[in-house]
């Protein structure tokens, strides 16, 4: 079995690493996720060759990624979650006292050429990495893994209201960052 796992590491390790990196956006965590996946593959040796080894390993990896994201969010002190009320002062940067936009959203010139596309994705990556860790993690769970809100709340042990507010704040932060750094039309 160990032999098998080492073969898998050689054949699929790089792919699994990229898959994890794309979702965790942290090289160390991505490496941990791959390692955990390999160890789990040894332990619950349930691979029966019906699917490809890569598909099977990716399935395990997805769970490991969510475990890591959950840990990232849960390790935050509770008080951080409580002050997440969207009506609090944290949204003062975006709206004035009467609830109007301070900077009205602009029309985005979406990238067309391959070069623009690459620049845009680069800026978006940087913007994501500027988000507070827990907002980034919940945003990735929802908008990349496309986990249902219900499942996110169960995984994270938070209320649905908290989840909506965190997602709202993550999206507000991202679009603001993009607006500042991407040329608008």
């Amino acid at each position, binding site marked *: 079995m160990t032999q098998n796992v080492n073969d898998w*590491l050689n054949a699929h390790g790089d792919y699994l*690493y990229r898959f994890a990196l*794309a979702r965790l956006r942290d090289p160390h965590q991505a490496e941990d996720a791959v390692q955990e996946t390999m160890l789990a593959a040894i332990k619950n040796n349930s691979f029966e060759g019906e699917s490809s080894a890569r598909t099977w390993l990716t399935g395990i990896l997805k769970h490991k990624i969510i475990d890591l994201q959950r840990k990232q969010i849960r390790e935050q002190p509770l008080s951080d979650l409580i002050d997440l009320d969207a009506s609090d002062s944290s949204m003062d940067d975006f*709206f004035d006292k009467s609830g109007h936009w301070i900077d009205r*959203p*602009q029309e985005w010139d979406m990238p067309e050429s391959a070069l623009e596309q690459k620049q845009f994705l680069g800026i978006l990556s940087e913007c994501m990495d500027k988000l507070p860790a827990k907002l980034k993690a919940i945003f990735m769970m929802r*908008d990349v893994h496309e986990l249902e809100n219900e499942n996110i709340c169960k995984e994270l042990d938070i209320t649905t209201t908290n989840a909506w507010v965190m997602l709202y704040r993550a999206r*507000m932060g991202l679009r603001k960052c993009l607006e500042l750094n991407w040329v608008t039309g």
Partner: protein
Amino acid sequence: MLTCKQASQLISQSLDRPLSWSSRLQLRFHLVICDACTRFKQQLNQLRSAIQRVTLHTESDSTITLSKEAKARIASAIDSKHH
């Protein structure tokens, strides 16, 4: 009448849950008269598809690999677990 702040919260939530009938109606009225929130809604949709593109992009970038050291670390973790 909804404020832009309230409307933007409903727009974000509509990506995560079905809005109530009355929220949908209020939001629709607001969007008819508010360009800024209409653009915001469009931006959130663009954002979502862009995030998925970034993910795919990283996932299929074959220049990103596990370093030799990382592979060695993982291989030794596998060994130590098994012997």
